[in-house]
């Protein structure tokens, strides 16, 4: 009995230092991958959803939501592997949930994409069914960026959804349907045009995996 008591005492004595040790380890700075946020969320949400009354920000990542199997699934749907040191399983994604009064009006989500001369930040505003309300490139370094960032180019994507992208391979630039009909406004920047479309398709797939598939599963 006395032996058991001693063991219990030792256990109790160990719990506190171990908990503190865990706390300290958790406090160590982690060198994570870079995410993609709106430059000015208050202003950008109001611009993309003029009727909105507020928004909520949440953060997620593939490694938190499904790990390796989810990554493989996203890659399969995208038709391309995640590549490079910056497109990894632990990239944090910021999802802006937009409200109009108490009603949820839609989402805003952005992804980073490697472009020809620098990182491209591609944002979409989506309605509750996953249809694109707005598409725009927040950042792009290219001589022809102006053409790709032109609102007239972005307006062509309004009303499209992930279903429209399923018949289109942005990496090869081939496919059919409404997406295939969208013309590159800067033929000199074909690589950046395809990169923007790849980013958009990836964006829609991720939103489907993170948000819409979960909402469809609701009773």
């Amino acid at each position, binding site marked *: 009995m006395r032996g058991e008591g001693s063991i219990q005492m030792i256990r109790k004595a160990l719990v506190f*230092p171990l908990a*503190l*040790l865990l*706390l*300290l380890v958790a*406090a*160590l700075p982690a*060198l994570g*991958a*870079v995410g993609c946020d709106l*430059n*000015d969320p208050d202003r950008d949400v109001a611009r993309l959803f003029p009727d909105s009354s507020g928004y909520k920000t949440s953060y997620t990542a593939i490694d938190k939501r499904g790990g390796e199997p989810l990554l493989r699934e996203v890659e399969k749907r995208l038709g391309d592997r995640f590549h*490079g*040191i*910056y*497109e990894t399983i632990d990239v944090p994604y910021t999802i802006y949930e937009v409200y109009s009064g108490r009603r949820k009006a839609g989402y805003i989500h952005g992804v*980073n*994409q*490697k*472009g*020809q*001369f*620098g*990182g491209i930040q591609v944002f979409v505003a989506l309605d509750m069914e996953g249809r694109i309300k707005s598409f725009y490139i*927040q*950042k*792009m*370094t*290219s*001589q022809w*960026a*102006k053409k790709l*960032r032109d609102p007239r180019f972005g307006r062509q994507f309004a009303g499209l959804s992930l279903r429209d992208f399923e018949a289109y391979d942005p990496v090869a630039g081939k496919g059919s349907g409404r997406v295939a009909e969208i013309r590159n406004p800067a033929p000199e920047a074909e690589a950046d045009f395809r990169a923007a479309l790849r980013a958009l398709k990836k964006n829609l797939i991720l939103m489907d995996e993170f948000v819409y598939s979960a909402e469809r599963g609701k009773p």
Partner: protein
Amino acid sequence: MISRFQIAYKNLLRKKARTLLTLVGIMLSSWVLVSLLGFNRGYEAALNRDIDNMGYQLMVMAKGCPYEAATMMLQGGTGLRYIEQSMVDSIVHRSEVDKVTPILMQAFFDPDKGDGGGIAGYFGVDAETFPTMKPFFRFRQGGWFHDEQAAEAVMGYEAAELEQREVGDKILVPEKNVQLKVVGILERTGTQDDGTIFVPLKTLQKISGIDKITTIGIKVKKDADSAKLEAALYQLPDVQVVSFTQVKQTIMKLVATARVMVLSIAIIAMLIAMAGVVNTILMSVLERLQEIGILKTMGAMPGDIFILVWTETLILCSSGGVAGIGLAFVFARLSDILVRRVLPYAPGGELVAIDLKLALLTLAVIVVVGLLSGIYPAWKAGRVRPLESIRSEG
């Protein structure tokens, strides 16, 4: 035969709660003391390391020219003023100078960065001298430029991460539409170099159409008189000199003020702990007057009693001291985080540096101060008169 140490130990165990509380007091004060001494040492070392990581201790630039990349970005590169590159030759031959490197800072407006556009900053550095100033740079990928006029760039860790660049990729200098090939990506340094894009000096001069420079970085010889060199540099026409030694001295003065305050608190904590020691031992002596009297009738000399009581003090102080130092070692990282939150400027790396030498020094201080506190109770115990104490009511 039972030893003096065993008797002292058993005496302390008689009143466990009192002994434990005294131990906690000593432990906490030694924790604070060793952490503070560790901070004293660690902060200065970290600050020196940060300044060494700059690569140079002095910077010479045109009067009124911003020298911080952040300032340059805020001003959109409009505040830049230039100095002749020939000025490098007039500095490099001075006896106090170890190495010199010319730098050209340039900022270009990128209309496609965000909504209203943004500034992209570039550092033109001499391919030969700049790398020798930054020997601590480690490459994540690739290396330095292949020649001094190459259309190449080396990117800091965060710059590469933001632009999603790898070695072999291209970057575009906005406004000028010049393409550069990324030949190296640096490991994270924790300094402003992480967000910097380095380009060969001559390449950046060619891109911007400027044959001058903005800054000269000077590494001073170890034993040289930095102040004398600084004064001499001020004689050069239309320049300002930024000395990191001055910056360091200013920061150290600020920190010293805070340190004196914390040290005072540590000393007060130690005095309170020692008052606790005196109280505990004195109480223990007063409770054992009859016992001490009997020991004396059995032949114990005042010196024996003195050493017996003093041994109790020694056990208390050394155990509390060791426990406190142990805690300081275990929680050094936590202390580091807390100090970082409180300080207005905290250099990178370990701020609370505790090593064995410091731990032993603190333990010695605690034990010596504790033994001094124990003199009075031990002396009082040694002076107990055997017959009076035996007659007294227990």
